[in-house]
Structures are given as structure tokens and as C-alpha cells.
């Protein structure tokens, strides 16, 4: 068994464990680290962030924003949550902070984020225990964003290709 297979086997074990925990106790017992096997949701507000021809969320939706001098992209961890619970979270925590309510969501694997150079998660659990930020976007102090943005586009394109859109 190669190291990669071993790693995947461990991830699967943890994923089942996590699934059972969450099924029994809800999202409050989410593991402190995001597992590659987890399912992520990203809420979509603008129709422009959906490619209606392919049915996938667009790259632009995953471009990071600078918050407190850190580049991040907001997602929530929804592996064991049914659609009703996810939309309840959206209604309670996401929609009030937006000008418009979410029209749908993109759903994809956390694995694809880990596959991008330098990207990982900060599962801050704010404002909801399921919330996490994708962090580790390429940032070079002293170099303007207009010169490094292509790195973000590249990673965002690879992530977006794994996030099909689901209407609300």
C-alpha cells in the first residue's frame, strides 16, 4: 500500500466517523480540521456567478476577498446536512448579511481545495459552526494584486469545475 492509498484509507475512516458523529449530534461536533472527503457548500447570490450552459458555479465566485489583510473565500461544511438544514443556515446566517437572498448553492468536495497549491481551510465556525474559509491564496507582500491574480484564477477555475450549481 502506497502512502497515498494509506492516507486515503485514513481519510475515509475519519469521514465515516465524522458522518456518524454529525448524524447523531448535528454540526456542533464537526472536527476541528476539514477533511478532504467532506462536502462543501457555497451560497450563490448573483446569477452572473453561475454558468447556465454548463450548470456549474463560475470561477469568479471563488476569487478570494481580502478580509483583515488575509485572502479568503467563504464556504460551509455540509457533509451530513440535508438540504432543508442547509437552507435554514442560509436564511438565518447568510441572507441577512447580503443585499439579496441566495438563489442557489454550489456543492463540491473539500478535496479539490486541498489539491490546489497552498490552499487549506480555516474552520472558524463564525457565524455558524459549519462555516470555514478557504485560505492560503497566493499573496506576495509588496507585489500588487494585479500581478498575482492569475494564480487565484487558476486555482478558482479548478475548484469551480467541481462545484455544480443547485437552485434554492
Amino acid at each position, binding site marked *: 500500500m502506497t502512502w497515498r492509498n494509506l492516507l486515503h484509507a485514513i481519510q475515509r475512516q475519519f469521514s465515516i466517523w465524522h458522518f456518524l458523529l454529525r448524524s447523531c449530534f448535528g454540526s456542533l461536533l464537526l472536527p476541528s480540521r476539514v477533511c478532504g472527503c467532506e462536502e462543501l457548500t457555497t451560497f450563490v*447570490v*448573483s446569477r*452572473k456567478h453561475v*454558468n447556465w*450552459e*454548463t450548470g*456549474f458555479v*463560475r*470561477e*469568479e465566485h471563488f*476569487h478570494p*476577498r481580502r478580509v483583515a489583510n488575509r485572502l479568503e473565500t467563504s464556504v460551509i461544511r455540509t457533509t451530513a446536512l440535508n438540504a432543508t438544514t442547509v437552507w435554514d443556515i442560509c436564511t438565518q446566517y447568510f441572507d441577512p448579511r*447580503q*443585499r*439579496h437572498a441566495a438563489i442557489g448553492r454550489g456543492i463540491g468536495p473539500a478535496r479539490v481545495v486541498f489539491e490546489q497549491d497552498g490552499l487549506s481551510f480555516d474552520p472558524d465556525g463564525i457565524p455558524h459552526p459549519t462555516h470555514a474559509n478557504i485560505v492560503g491564496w497566493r499573496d506576495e507582500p509588496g507585489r500588487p*494584486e*494585479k*500581478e*498575482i*491574480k*492569475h*494564480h487565484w*484564477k*487558476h486555482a478558482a*477555475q*479548478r475548484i*469551480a*469545475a467541481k462545484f455544480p450549481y443547485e437552485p434554492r
Partner: protein
Amino acid sequence: MTELVLSKSTSIWPFESETRAVSTYGRMLDDLLSIATRQVGRNVQDWDVQIESALAEIVAECSVDDWDGCGAKAVLPETVTITRLVANILHERVPKGTPPPDVLPESDGEIALSWTRTPDRVFSISVGDHGNLNYAGRLADGVEPHDVAEFTARDPTTIQHLALFITQLFR
């Protein structure tokens, strides 16, 4: 006959309506030609129409800060002008029939010109008011160019380079 064909010089295929094939095979070719002509004509026209329409929408909706309710930067008139210029020059350099890009505002105030073939086959150029073009694409397995290039209207090298990527995407 010849005079009639020449008089319709605006048509992409000058024989479009003047020739009528007799055989089944000929009629089939005629139909295919007609479909192809309409397709090419539509795409050529769509570049201008779609880009202008999308830019007008962006100007109307995204010209002030926080246009998305999440702190997005305003799209400046200079960005719109440069995007139009980039799209026009690209249009001249990609093969006929290349579909027009989707034109999308970005949260940092830039505008993206984006081509999609499948979810895994995309090419996108971000245009800002600074004259730098950030591009990234997934053209084939393992062919994923991304970089930043300086754009000047007088030097077509950059656009030529990008046009080749777009051509490759739809090859």
C-alpha cells in the same frame, strides 16, 4: 449568375441562396452550408452585440462601490473602455465562428472575458484599469496556462498570444 453572386458580397458564403442542388447529396451539402453560414454569421454578430449589451449592464449595475452588497469595488469607465478594446482586437484575431466571451464583473472592479467549452475547459481574461491582463485557462489535460501580460493597443503581441489560447480551447 456570377453578377448576382458578386452583388451579394456581404454574405459570408456568396453562393448561399443562388445555387440549388439537384441531387440528394447536393441538397444535403446545401443544407449543411446554410446551417454553417447562419452559425458563423450569428457568432460574428454576437461578439459586438453581446459584449456591448453586457458592458452596458455592468455600467448600469456595477459603477458604484459595494455593488454586490459584499464590498465589491466599482467598475471604472476606464476598465469598460479597455475591456471593449481588448475584446475588439481579440475578435479580429480569433478564427471565424469562435463564440463570443461571457462578460462578467469581478469583485475587485475588473471585468472578465470568459470562454467555456465544458466545466473543465475554460479560458478567462481579467481586465482592469491598469492595463494588465491576468489570464488563466484549462485548455486540455495538463495544458493550463496562467500569467499576467501587459496590454497596449499598439503592440498586438499580447493579444495574439491570448487569441492562440482561445483558438486552442475550441480546436
